[in-house]
């Protein structure tokens, strides 16, 4: 139906033919025709395979940007909450683009390079993010600042995720990746092709995001898939993996109306930024941090029985309406249902018993710490 309603044709990534060759079932996502599942492996198989071995996800629809110029830190710090001066060269951080009201315009991973900042943000926000970056860069340029925003449109993005990722990538790079910490990035040859490899991901597992020259992405991905431990996985598994890992989906769990404080993402606000501010909406956000303000909090909920989905109302033990579910699934790794929800602050403490309304009936739920599944990120020994 979405297809019929949309007038613009769906865009295809450079891996489209490879997806077709593997029997992908496609679904429209943010204007792209993206693989949901593959032939012979349902969403559940792909989810569990990623937790046990490794999967390759095509995430080429995401926006990759490079920010250059002497004033790049001053520029980007106006738009995001991270302390980019503290971030070491080669280091990556999760950050948030904010707006004047203290809401979240997008979430992003920023990597510090010697001469530039490498920024990856959501496909669904790509046009908005790029316009936002360019608008503010132009304003700063008019004041004489040296900054430039460049969309990276000649590289595709592939995520290799799961405990077998390191071994799979070592085979194609000849590197000892045990020494590469999680949330760092570097340039390296993968199967002989110069790529950017970032040790990060969206599954709660160890893994890498590879920015590969688009002309070579199909051949490099095929080389990754030669490893018997590595299989393709689609957006369906990506969503269930990230939810078990307690990671937000922009547009569902965070958006322009939720603040970092309400979303439980205060940890992304750098220490220096908390005293100095200087980002959009800093007055609102720093005020909320100081007063533990905001009326609601994002929480994890665990329940049994009928799974709660986005939009389901959350009730207190007494039946008072206290919030709403923003993402929910029967968690494949747990055999229970997990959900993210926004609830009134006084109901957000761990172990608070709540109820969720599902099809006119209520199921018992309890506020739980996230991630729901222990994170398996790489630690350098």
């Amino acid at each position, binding site marked *: *139906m979405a297809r019929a309603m949309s007038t613009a044709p769906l865009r295809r990534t450079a891996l489209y033919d490879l997806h077709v060759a593997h029997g992908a079932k496609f679904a429209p996502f943010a204007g792209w025709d993206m693989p949901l599942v593959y032939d012979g492996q349902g969403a559940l198989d792909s989810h569990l395979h990623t937790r046990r071995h490794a999967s390759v996800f095509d995430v080429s629809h995401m926006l990759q940007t490079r920010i250059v110029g002497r004033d790049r830190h001053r520029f980007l710090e106006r738009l995001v909450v991270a302390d980019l001066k503290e971030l070491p060269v080669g280091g990556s951080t999760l950050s948030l683009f904010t707006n004047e009201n203290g809401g979240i315009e997008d979430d992003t991973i920023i990597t510090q390079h010697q001469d530039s900042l490498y920024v990856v943000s959501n496909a669904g926000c790509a046009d908005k993010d790029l316009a936002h970056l360019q608008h503010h860069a132009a304003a700063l340029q008019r004041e004489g600042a040296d900054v430039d925003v460049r969309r990276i449109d000649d590289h595709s993005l592939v995520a290799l995720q799961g405990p077998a990722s390191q071994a799979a990538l070592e085979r194609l790079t000849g590197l000892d990746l045990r020494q590469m910490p999680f949330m760092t990035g570097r340039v390296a040859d993968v199967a002989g092709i110069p790529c950017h490899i970032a040790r990060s991901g969206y599954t709660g597992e160890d893994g890498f995001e590879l920015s590969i020259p688009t002309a070579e992405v199909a051949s490099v991905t095929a080389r990754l898939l030669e490893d018997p431990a590595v299989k393709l996985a689609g957006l369906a598994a990506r969503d269930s993996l990230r939810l078990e890992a307690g990671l937000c989906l922009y547009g569902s769990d965070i958006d322009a109306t939720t603040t970092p404080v309400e979303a439980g993402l205060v940890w992304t606000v750098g220490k220096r930024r908390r005293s100095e501010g200087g980002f959009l909406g800093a007055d609102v956000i720093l005020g909320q941090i100081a007063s533990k303000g905001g009326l609601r909090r994002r929480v994890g909920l665990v329940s049994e029985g009928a799974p709660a989905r986005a939009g389901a109302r959350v009730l207190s033990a007494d039946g008072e309406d206290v919030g709403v579910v923003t993402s929910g699934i029967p968690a494949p790794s747990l055999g229970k249902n997990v959900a993210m929800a926004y609830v009134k602050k006084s109901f957000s403490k761990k172990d608070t018993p709540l109820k969720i309304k599902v099809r006119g009936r209520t199921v018992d739920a309890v506020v739980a710490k996230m991630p729901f599944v222990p994170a398996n990120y790489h630690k350098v020994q």
Partner: protein
Amino acid sequence: MLALLTRTAVRSAGVARRHLTKYTKSHEWVKIDKGVGTIGITDYAQSSLGDVVYVEVPEVGAEVTPEEPVGVVESVKSTSDIFSPLTGTIVDANKEVVGNTKLINKAAETDGWLFKVKFSSEAELDELLSAAEYKKHIADGGDH
């Protein structure tokens, strides 16, 4: 080939309403046998839905109509309401699929049946699709 198909269709219409399988636009199958309809989701529906991880079937004795959902079949990603295309009384429900949801993916149109309804209106049968009509419905995109 076309002539052959037509003849088959005529013949199965002749067997009438005592013993046949019909379909709904919302991807349920209905097997009619002596005033009782056995209902499940089609193989196309299970394949679109993916791995089924949660099922609710109606209580035996419940009065059902085509307007209200009577159960639910869920994958990790999505929820599908199940409707009874026939008005009547639930006379049996498949408890086995509730505990073994994989059965729906393995055998949606046989062992993965969901419930049986003793129907009160023969006229509702005319609203249902034949196998050929259902096949065309899927080929057209399957939206309902």
